[in-house]
């Protein structure tokens, strides 16, 4: 009898090379499935099991997952974009033009990067409000909410620093408007602005600084906090579900006790 695709895949997972790479081993028992999460350096951030009720669309609207999705798309499109881009004025603008008209699929890459960035900002806000209205910031999840606020600021900074990189009129004046706000900080406003722009006006120094922030510092910092954010979900008892909270369960148990006594 011919082998099915599943059997070929099982054979592959049984080979010595595969077994040397993945620590969880083969098999589809509950234990092996749990190990494939727990024994994986990336997936071990998540818990091995999730409450079934949290998988329904209404529980979370999948907003956190989708935000991660936009982040992955942004990394995947951002790296090829870096290959065609020099962070110097006015070469940056010429490179952006080349991406539009010369580079194969350059226009598509830039479009996808830009719309995903807008989408990510929107999704982060939506995720925050959804979490708030579900009351999912409650103990012991307080600090994960704070990390979420940090990630919101990181997202805004990522989007804002990326906004300057095309070096067109839209970019230049949006950043000028924004950096003027920084100079309104009492006492040290102009110093902050100087530090941010590497000068007193938006010019080539500012472009280089924003490029380094946008492509190196901010993504790495964001990934660091995203890892803590995911890990804390597991450590804090999984996704918040009001009906599954110990306090709710106790209250329900107490009220069912009372009704049971009244019935007697």
């Amino acid at each position, binding site marked *: 009898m011919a082998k099915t695709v599943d059997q070929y895949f099982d054979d592959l997972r049984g080979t010595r090379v595969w077994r040397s790479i993945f620590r969880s081993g083969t098999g*589809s028992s509950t234990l092996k499935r749990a190990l494939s999460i727990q024994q994986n350096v990336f997936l071990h951030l998540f818990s091995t099991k999730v409450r079934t009720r949290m998988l329904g669309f209404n529980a979370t609207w999948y907003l956190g997952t989708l935000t991660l999705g936009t982040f992955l798309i942004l990394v995947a499109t951002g790296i090829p974009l870096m290959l065609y881009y020099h962070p110097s004025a006015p070469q940056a603008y010429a490179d952006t033009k080349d991406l539009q008209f010369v580079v194969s699929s350059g226009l598509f890459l830039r479009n996808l990067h830009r719309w995903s960035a807008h989408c990510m900002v929107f999704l982060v806000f939506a995720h925050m409000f959804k979490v708030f209205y579900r009351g999912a910031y409650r103990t012991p999840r307080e600090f994960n909410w704070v990390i979420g606020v940090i990630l919101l600021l990181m997202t805004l900074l990522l989007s804002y620093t990326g906004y300057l990189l095309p070096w067109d009129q*839209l970019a230049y004046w949006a950043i000028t408007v924004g950096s003027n706000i920084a100079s309104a900080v009492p006492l040290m406003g102009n110093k902050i602005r100087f530090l941010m722009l590497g000068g007193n006006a938006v010019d080539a120094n500012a472009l280089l600084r924003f490029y380094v922030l946008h492509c190196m510092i901010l993504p790495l910092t964001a990934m660091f906090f995203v890892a803590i954010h995911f890990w804390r979900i597991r450590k804090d008892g999984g996704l918040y579900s009001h009906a599954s909270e110990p306090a709710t369960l106790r209250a329900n148990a107490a009220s069912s006790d009372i009704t049971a006594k009244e019935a007697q």
Partner: protein
Amino acid sequence: MADPKDFTAGIDSNAKKSPRRIVFITRRTSAQVKADTENQIQTFPEVLFRAAVAIQMLAIALVWIALVFNAPLEGLADPSHTPNPAKAPWYFLGLQEMLHYFPPVVAGVLVPGLVVMALIVIPYFRVNIEAEGLFLKDRQRRLRIFYLAVGALSVFLLFFKVYAALVPTLIMAAAMLLAAQSSSQSSSAFQRYLAGRPLSYWVMTWFLFELVVLTAIGTFFRGPGWAWVWPWQGS
């Protein structure tokens, strides 16, 4: 195909190998029976599969958008030529709209700083955790504080002529007054819902409302010199 199981189930009666737990119930304690029957599902593969499908659908939508709509690209950056209006990215247009009314130190530093502070401290306030209806307890006193707060805020916004922020504030105040007139015995389901909303809900919803309104005004209704234009007038 599933692997053949490498173990057999059986009943082990050896008390040394499988000890049992016995609970002693004294007069002062009572057994707490934890009925934890909630269904759980394996992360691998069920949850990861769903997450992958969700991300795939998002990616398809974004690819489609990227194929149809081009990202904007204007002329080369020119410090000597200021476009009118010079707009920030859309998510900062709420802030830029506020800059139109207030001095930069208020709209650009104080307000965003306070918003971030407020967001951070949300989970550390008892009133947010307990989540009781705002007007269910101590109604008269809370109504007086509510009138005072809304009155002060309205006068402040009127003084700076911030009608864009005043209108959402008054709409929210009306909803809160309706909540104050409602209770869990109200006939309409909407009123019962409003009556149970805590203070944090009202503050956050007001913030969301202002955020949406100010961002929309900054994006669609502001033209040269930050003057009011209708979207169909062009800029």
